[in-house]
């Protein structure tokens, strides 16, 4: 029984591996085809950054707006929460009422956190 289950699990994820390889090969072969067919010039102007006529000063990736990080932190919290909800969602009916109320409390605490972030203006794009 156990051997069969492991066999099935393995059988299920073999296509995932093959699809990963195929996805890679698909893009790679198209790009190689493009490299063979397309013209290629060593012209210096073509290697410059796309901007409004002049060359940019400093690298573009030096500074990024801080609000992006705020959303990323909030996302991290709620993403972990959804990971917790996944196993709960499939089994709470069998466990019974206390599992449901435990999740209500859990989501309630997170909702309070969301409300606090909202009130503090972390959700407001400025």
């Amino acid at each position: 029984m156990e051997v069969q289950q492991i066999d099935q699990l393995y059988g299920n994820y073999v296509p995932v591996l093959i699809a990963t390889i195929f996805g890679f090969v698909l893009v790679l072969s198209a790009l190689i085809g493009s490299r063979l067919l397309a013209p290629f010039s060593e012209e210096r102007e073509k290697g410059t950054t796309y901007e409004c006529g002049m060359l940019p000063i400093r690298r573009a990736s030096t500074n990024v707006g801080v609000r992006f990080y705020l959303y990323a932190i909030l996302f991290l919290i709620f993403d972990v929460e959804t990971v917790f909800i996944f196993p709960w969602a499939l089994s709470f009916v069998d466990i019974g009422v206390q599992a449901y109320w435990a999740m209500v409390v859990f989501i309630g605490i997170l909702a309070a956190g969301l409300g606090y972030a909202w009130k503090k203006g972390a959700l407001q794009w400025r």
Partner: protein
Amino acid sequence: MNYDLFGLELNVWVDALIRVLLIVGFMTVSVMGLIYIERKILARFQRRLGPTRTGPMGLLQSLADALKLIGKEDLRPKSADPWTFEFAPYVVFIPVFLGFVIVPFLFGWQVRVIELGLLYFVATSSVNIVGWVMAGWGSDNRYAMIGGMRAAAQGISYELPLVLALLAVAMIASSLNLQEIVSAQGRVPFVVWQPLAFFIFFVAALAEMNRPPFDIPIGESEVVGGPFVEYSGFRWSVFFLAEYAALFILSAIGAAVFLGGWAWPLGEELGRGWQLILMSAKTGMLIFLVFWVRASVPRLRIDQLMGYSWKVLLPLALAQVLVNGAVLVYDWPKQVLLVTGVMGLLALFWVTERAVRQPRTRPAMTIAQSEAAS
């Protein structure tokens, strides 16, 4: 362990190889078809004809475009980060392509029935956000950088409502297996019991695909194409291959999860022909809806976009999960789901309508300016 494919008994590896090859062919054809259909439909919405010259009724337009793109020069800016820049298209495309493994085309027609199908889908599909950030970061261009950051912010914000909406349905079906979810719908599809979850799923899916009106990361009038500014030739078109493949996958999964897939309304004991007609009609309807929204809704501003996800969709999705839990635990009648779902939907429409009628005062700096300044 052997697998049965068209009546042949095959080894795991051979079977998987053939199925994935079939998917590759199907994906290429369907992406080309979708691009052609989108151009035709958008043209109709704008009282134009769309492509007409290449082949009968312009049918070969996508093929001609693909050939043209392969023949175009593949440029890379001198200052770009070579590895990040060159690998971004792979990281965008492969996760989307992995989604095809669980798409339930017809009964018994999919690559594999994975027990944790929905979890697998949300886990793999969200990886492509990394690819968008890589494209933005690697290009060493300010437009690309802002576009990539916007793509990340939008992608992670709408990930949550999308997952919670799918989870609400999985609770009722008490399974993450897509085949079981389709079978669990019986005579009434889940869109009836979960109208709010369906709406949240649809909106969040639009945002995840960066389709208009949520195409802020690639907004031409603000960041001139966002992460793809520096891309050209076929490397550029890989992003669009991924976008249209994602469009098909999300529509097919939406059709299976919310609209009853191949089974509803004719029941499960159907021939392949009927299943094919039902499934393609439902998937096609969702795809048409996506094109329709693109043709009629203007692009959002980024503050509206983030606010809509965090202040409207996320609380409603959490409430939907809790309501479903209560109904299932206390064995309340299913009609409660319908009533609460419709009430939630009305509340959502009311909030949206109010926000549209009384827009916030415009910020002193435009959004793009403040992003560049910080």
